């Protein structure tokens, strides 16, 4: 069997485990050095998902209830690519987010903003043959959190992705352009490299904006790994 070994991310493009401005990292980050491992079959393989894992309205968060959710309807789309810019077809993309008032439909969310009976805030889709995905949703709201006095998270959508193997697994957050909270958010600013942070901010997109219906936002995602130069793995 053949499997490609992946290169390491350039310095500054991934956060460290410990980032004290995000207070929850202080007791949840390892103090011992991580042990560097060779890439074995156990990490280069991973679960494979198919269309049977996806429901009919899973990519349209505005059609999961009897009525329409309150909020600004948006279309979020983009491509899932490897580090060389090759499309990753069949990648499972999962998303979750607040409603337009900044409230999660989740038992531990104590924010005093209203729930929306017509909005759950989760979705999933498989990328097509060109690595493309597309969600219809409403724009999430900002919300307060307990990290520091008067702390507010900028509006964001959580993204979870499964690529070709475990080392391509990615969980990230997509932000919105022009959000005044972005410079103050410890989660976004845990990424040292400014260009890498900017790649977490979606782009407003006229081409996917549907006249009279919904604004389009573009967000491409690059998963670790590349297709080139597979090496022989003894099996």
């Amino acid at each position, binding site marked *: 069997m053949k499997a490609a070994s992946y290169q390491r991310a350039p310095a500054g493009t991934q956060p460290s485990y410990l980032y004290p401005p995000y207070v929850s990292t202080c007791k*949840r980050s390892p103090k011992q050095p991580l042990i560097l*491992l060779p890439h*074995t079959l156990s990490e280069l393989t991973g679960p494979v998902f198919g269309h049977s894992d996806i429901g009919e309205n899973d990519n349209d968060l505005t059609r999961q209830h009897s009525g329409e959710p309150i909020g600004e309807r948006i279309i979020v789309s983009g491509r899932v690519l490897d580090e060389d810019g090759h499309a990753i077809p069949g990648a499972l993309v999962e998303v979750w987010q607040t409603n337009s008032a900044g409230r999660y439909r989740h038992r531990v969310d104590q924010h005093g903003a209203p729930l929306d009976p017509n909005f759950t805030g989760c979705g999933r889709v498989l990328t097509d043959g060109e690595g493309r995905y597309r969600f219809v949703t409403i724009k999430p709201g900002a919300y307060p959190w307990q990290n520091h006095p008067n702390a507010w998270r900028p509006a964001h959508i959580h993204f979870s992705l499964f690529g070709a193997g475990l080392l391509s697994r990615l969980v990230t957050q997509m932000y919105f352009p022009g959000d005044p909270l972005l410079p103050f958010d410890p989660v976004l600013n845990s990424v040292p490299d400014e260009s890498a942070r900017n790649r977490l901010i979606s782009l407003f997109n006229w081409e996917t904006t549907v006249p009279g219906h919904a604004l389009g936002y573009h967000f491409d*995602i690059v998963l670790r790994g590349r297709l080139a130069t597979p090496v022989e793995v003894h099996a």
Partner: protein
Amino acid sequence: MTTPPTSSQTVGPFFHLGMVYLESDNFAAEGIPGDRVTIRGKVLDGDGAPVPDAVLEVWQADSAGRYPSEFSSQNSSAPRFLGFGRIETDDKGEFKFATIKPGRVPSPDGSLQAPHIVVTLFSRGLLKPLRTRIYFPDESSNAEDAVLKLVPPERRPTLMATRSGERGAENLLDWNIVMQGDGETVFFDY
């Protein structure tokens, strides 16, 4: 022209909303060959406090040492071993899942690895996941495992499941994750 991988961000405390549908605590459906084991444990932070908002993703080979993607085209009428599961910790920071003991899979150097389960841990406060492994007790191949050999001997016990010792629960194994501090679990980088 290459682009670095997109930066990781925390799953936050509300991942249940988007991740619940892939949750499973039993990968050992009737008809799947292999020795049944149940693995239970808890996730602890640097204060020794339970972590009630973590999610484990586990990935393992079948009892013959094959990963599911390698034989997805085989007889689809047989019970399918997915090899993957997602388990949330509960309010006490505890988790439990039932599976089969995996077989041995190859190392890059051509030797066989000892049976193991790969665990990827996500939680609030983790800006990127922690990756570790579960190994099995009373397994002679542990001594020759190429990955374990890279771990200082005094830290290897953090990767070893132990028998619960409870009467009538011979297949019940304990394995905890300590995110930080005394007895900190060995985490891997790739």
